[in-house]
């Protein structure tokens, strides 16, 4: 396959392919992080995760339009405002949903699956009614498009690097919140033993609401970032949901480290296979490998050690 190409050509491709893998890794982490928090910390299977992402994308689209009309000079930097707004909107909707729907179902985890699936259908139709059935095009500022010319033959997508930087930032913040802040301690206490956490004075309801809101808010940021690389339409959330669940389940539901490790292994397998085989075959082999590993190790890559 490589006989016809020069060494420098191959080197350049190898470097770009390496970046392609890392970008895919960042995308996977970003989309799975919100779900991992909700699934891992609360045991709620949020089937509407994709729709929370798309809400973020729509907020970005609206911000873009608004900024172009009201304050065009702000356009080059509007994306940062849009991401903050996306976090707030998706997070707020998440807290509302937790209050209205999820909190009544904590004792029936399988019912949350059904309820959030229904919610995802409702949200899809709501987007369709409000924003129209067609996809919307989100306009990006000039500096975020195109690629960075590292050498003559190596080009790295700028939006890919942007997603990578964003993923590192968000992951760091989430780890800080969950493992070093006092609120994070409360969350982990509630996860480990809800009754005892309540007994020592932690407001478990409030912790639940904010955790759910945080997960949804991060989904919103992810959706906002993905307007750079994907489509924004009423059902676009469905494009991400399968991969998202795959990453979270394969990593071990209750472990954030697991999510990152699994995102890394899936993305590297996928992008390497895609290069040597074809798109469809890469997907098939990746899925078969994951199924195989999960059969041997049903708890996923990483699991919390719990005395049973």
């Amino acid at each position, binding site marked *: 396959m490589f006989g016809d*190409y020069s060494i420098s*050509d*191959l080197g350049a*491709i190898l470097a*770009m*392919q390496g*970046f*392609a893998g890392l*970008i*895919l890794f960042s*995308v996977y982490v970003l989309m799975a992080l919100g779900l991992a928090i909700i699934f891992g910390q609360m045991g709620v299977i949020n089937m509407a995760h994709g729709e929370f992402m798309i809400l973020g994308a729509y907020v970005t689209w609206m911000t873009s339009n608004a900024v172009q009309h009201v304050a065009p000079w702000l356009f080059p930097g509007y994306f940062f405002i849009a991401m903050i707004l996306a976090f707030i909107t998706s997070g707020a909707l998440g807290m509302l949903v937790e209050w209205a729907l999820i909190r009544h179902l904590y004792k029936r985890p399988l019912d949350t699956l059904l309820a959030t699936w229904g919610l995802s259908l409702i949200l899809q*139709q709501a987007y*369709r009614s409000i924003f*129209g*059935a*067609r*996809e*919307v*095009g*989100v*306009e990006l500022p000039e500096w975020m*498009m*195109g*690629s960075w*010319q590292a050498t003559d033959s190596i*080009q790295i*997508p*700028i*939006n*890919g690097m942007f997603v990578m930087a964003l993923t590192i930032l968000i992951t760091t913040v989430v780890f800080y919140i969950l493992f070093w802040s006092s609120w994070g301690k409360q969350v982990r206490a509630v996860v480990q033993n809800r009754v005892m956490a309540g007994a020592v004075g932690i407001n478990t309801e409030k912790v639940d609401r904010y955790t759910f809101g945080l997960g949804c808010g991060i989904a919103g940021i992810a959706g906002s970032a*993905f307007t*750079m*690389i*994907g*489509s*924004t*339409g*009423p*059902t*676009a959330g*469905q*494009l*991400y949901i399968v991969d998202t669940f795959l990453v979270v389940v394969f990593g071990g539901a209750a472990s954030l480290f697991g999510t990152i490790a699994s995102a890394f292994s899936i993305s590297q397998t*996928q*992008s390497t296979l*895609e*290069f040597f085989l*074809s*798109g*469809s075959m*890469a*997907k098939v082999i990746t899925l078969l490998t994951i199924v195989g590993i999960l059969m041997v190790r049903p708890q996923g890559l990483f699991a919390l050690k719990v005395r049973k």
Partner: protein
Amino acid sequence: MSDETKPGLKSPLRRKLLMGMAALPAVSMLGRPAFAEVPATSAVNTTGLAVTDSEVTVGILHSVTGTMAISETGSVEAEKLAIEQINAAGGVLGRKIKFIQEDGASDWPTFAEKAKKLLVNDKCAAVMGCWTSASRKAVLPVFEQYNGMLYYPTFYEGLEQSKNVIYTGQEATQQIIAGLDWVNKTKGAKSFYLLGSDYIWPRTSNKIARKHIENHLQGCKVVGEEYFPLGSTQFNSVINKIKLTKPDVIYAIIVGGSNVAFYKQLKAAGIDLSKQTLLTISVTEDEIDGIGGENIAGAYACMKYFQSLDNPNNKAFVPAFKKMWGEKTVIGDVTQAAYLGPWLWKLTVEKAGSFDIDKIAAASPGVEFKGAPEGYVRIHENHHLWSKTRVGRAKADGQYELIYETADLVEPDPFPKGYQ
């Protein structure tokens, strides 16, 4: 109508009333009594279709909910516009068209069920509908069993022909071959990289493209052929492969949300479409709306219609469409093909002098529509359309600029020999 309020109104009087009503608009339209113009219902409808002295019912069957709503919305809009225009011009055989709209909900069994409802319960004289091949395959047995008439608007992979379907879009060879010949001749293209979403239409189309490239174009070769699951959003690996193999032409048949991801990532990876030739048959003006004109500017598309076409029919059609559906709407190839459906049906009914399905099916070949926005179309023996193939180049404002069109109409050939 008055059925519930006046149960005693028996048929002779009722009939007179209805005929009077039928005549009213016709009188105002033509300026003379229309009774002679409107043939008796019993003569034009011998099989019990929903045809009265004043009205004829047709069905519209598209997805307005679910994933396919993105694509099918334009078709619904075009069909409603055509029906409104036909009614304003006096209807079909003096009868106004009334439509019943059903939602296929992007679900193929639902399409079949709703098709049956439209044919059996509503007795629709014709149905404009379906978009994906999967939905058409689902309703085909229903239309054949209950003897209905379907006007199907989408360009598709061919390999089908039915007495009960008129295909107003292009079959694969009409869309592919002229475009490849053009790119080979004017761009001197020798190597092609074929891409597609992983389902029947892109696979069949690429098969035809490959056969044509390898057997009919001198010295040309395919350097790669690849498919991606529907809904794929990551294309960086294949873009690297394209960079490595440096094809003269990227031939892309990617659909849906993947489309947006593909073109955004292509641009981000530094592939400049003003230098790299890319030819697609799956991106109409509708799709560019979601992709963003700045991301796809410079790409070539092979279609039969572009919104920017410069002819008198299109100059009337585009403003009428925008007036009805909003200034911001765009009109893609399939939307135009959907607009042809009701008109072709009207012309066929008038040629046959009857609403009967068998007579329409027999009368269809040879029916010509001179008012088509794409120019002029004619129905072929095989129920597909003779139409021109055109190549357009995408501009940053989301419109195509016409670059090339075939001199003559291209013959539809749903079962192409040597391409299977």
